[in-house]
């Protein structure tokens, strides 16, 4: 018996060692670099810099304004990521619902179709959007040939949001769909029999039941879109730097300690946000049914 357990322990050993060495230890290094200076002695200067560094930006009307550089960028990342996540939910929820109602073969086909764009490199996807949305790009050519005025999208926040929505949309649809496909349809029928209208069924039965999928969809879109880099460099013409772009820039400039500090802040905030979401769902979704 003991011999058997030992065999299994031995099978587990390589991965245990690997995950300590290459998952946990590297995370500790983020903290170590974040709190030390170039000669590895303790400092808080990176955090002070992150929260207090200021720079001057020009407003549209020609006046200038003093802003907290990194705090502003961080808040912008959060804002754009939240908007994108919300749009993904707004677009993805009905699609997941439609999918779950379709015939099984159609469902499988739609699943594959949704996943196909994910199998194309995200750099190329983003670049393709850039060529579509350019001032002389395909979209504007189409608009012009239809008799509309050309519009300016590239280099605006809208373009960055479109890029984010496009890149992370499947991560929203798939978890919601997989919950809805498993949903007990008898509950919907029961609600109908008891006199619920379509809207009431959606609001009081389908939506609450699909919440776990919605929540995992939100986290799966929010986390990569908050931390993304490249999208805003290409689609925002570099005007709307996000926190990921700053980390990348500091890495390229070899300011590893400052890059680590920003990564550390990002990680702590994301962990806190996820804990809040988890606590909130447990408390209000599963715990507070009696209202």
């Amino acid at each position, binding site marked *: 018996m003991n*011999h058997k*357990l030992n*065999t299994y322990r031995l099978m587990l050993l390589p991965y245990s060692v690997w995950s300590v060495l290459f998952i946990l230890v*590297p995370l500790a290094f983020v903290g170590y670099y974040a709190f030390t200076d170039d000669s590895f002695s303790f400092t808080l200067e990176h955090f002070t810099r992150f929260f207090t560094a200021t720079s001057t930006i020009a407003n549209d009307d020609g006046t200038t304004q003093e802003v907290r550089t990194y705090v502003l960028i961080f808040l912008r990342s959060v804002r754009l990521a939240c908007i994108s996540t919300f749009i993904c939910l707004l677009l993805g929820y009905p699609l997941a619902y439609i999918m779950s109602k379709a015939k099984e073969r159609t469902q499988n086909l739609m699943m594959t179709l949704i996943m196909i764009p994910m199998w194309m490199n995200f750099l190329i*996807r983003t670049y*393709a959007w850039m060529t579509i949305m350019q001032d*002389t790009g395909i979209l504007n*050519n189409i608009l012009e040939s239809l008799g509309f005025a050309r519009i300016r999208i590239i280099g605006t926040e809208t373009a960055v949001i479109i890029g984010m929505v496009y890149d992370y949309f499947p991560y929203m649809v798939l978890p919601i769909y997989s919950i809805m496909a498993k949903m007990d349809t008898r509950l919907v029928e029961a609600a109908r029999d008891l006199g619920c209208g379509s809207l009431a069924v959606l609001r009081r039965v389908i939506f609450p039941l699909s919440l776990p999928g919605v929540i995992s969809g939100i986290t799966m879109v929010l986390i990569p879109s908050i931390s993304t880099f490249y999208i805003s460099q290409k689609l925002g013409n570099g005007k709307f730097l996000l926190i990921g772009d700053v980390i990348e820039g500091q890495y390229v400039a070899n300011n590893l300690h400052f890059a680590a500090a920003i990564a550390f802040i*990002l990680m702590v905030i994301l962990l806190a946000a996820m804990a809040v979401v988890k606590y909130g769902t447990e408390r209000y979704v599963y715990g507070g049914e009696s209202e």
Partner: protein
Amino acid sequence: MKIGSKIYTTIVFAFLFAPIVVMLIYSFNDSKSLSVFSGFSMRWYKELLNDRNTLESVKNTLILAFSATAISTVMGTAAAVGIEKLRGKWYCRTLKTVTDIPMTNPDIITGISLMLMFVFVGRLVGARTSLSFWTMLIAHVTFCLPYVILQVLPKLQQMDKALPEAAMDLGCTPLRAFFKVELPEILPGIITGAIMAFTMSLDDFVISYFTTGNGFETLPIRIYGMTKKTVTPKMYALATLIFFTTMSLLIVRNLVDNDQRREKKEKKDIYAIK
């Protein structure tokens, strides 16, 4: 489907496929433009085949993906078996939580964290450049492992637990029982996990970006470099080729899944007849 649903689905899919269609069409463009189509030609595909550096990066990407897949599949499968058999033990629960970290952490943090460690260790041993193929391989194995484990674990849980017990009662060692009884049962999970690991490794840019060095360039990193300058339809030709390669992998995966489903159904039918 109702008319409204159909229209809605069509619009969403049009949005999802717009960039792909654009890329496919313009990869055959005769001119250098990425927005005006002037005629059909294969010239960008020809140019691609003459581009030594890109072909080299394709080779690098494949070497890396195959190595990372092989290592993570073997290690991940062994780990999944260990986790399943020893479940309930404190270190298994801890290990499962640790496995979730690379999946939930943003890529950029995984990449930065590994890079910092490599640079630190490299400085400690006095190496001139600490980032290379090997650091990238470690990084890829690290982010592939959870995918393998999470594909294999459910197969182990679904399996009839009496089977390996019976084999061992009949004199098999646990290891022999594993190879003779369990491995064939969980093989579909291993294959799906391996394919996922492979495609993840092929496609990864962010983590690779932070952990590569010493001139080792994979395809996504090369594409990143190319998009910093003006891009020609050559990149679209490349993307089209990658697209069809990953598509065929996806189809293979679906075939494996379908086989499984059919097998299950046949098994059920046999029981039904009995």
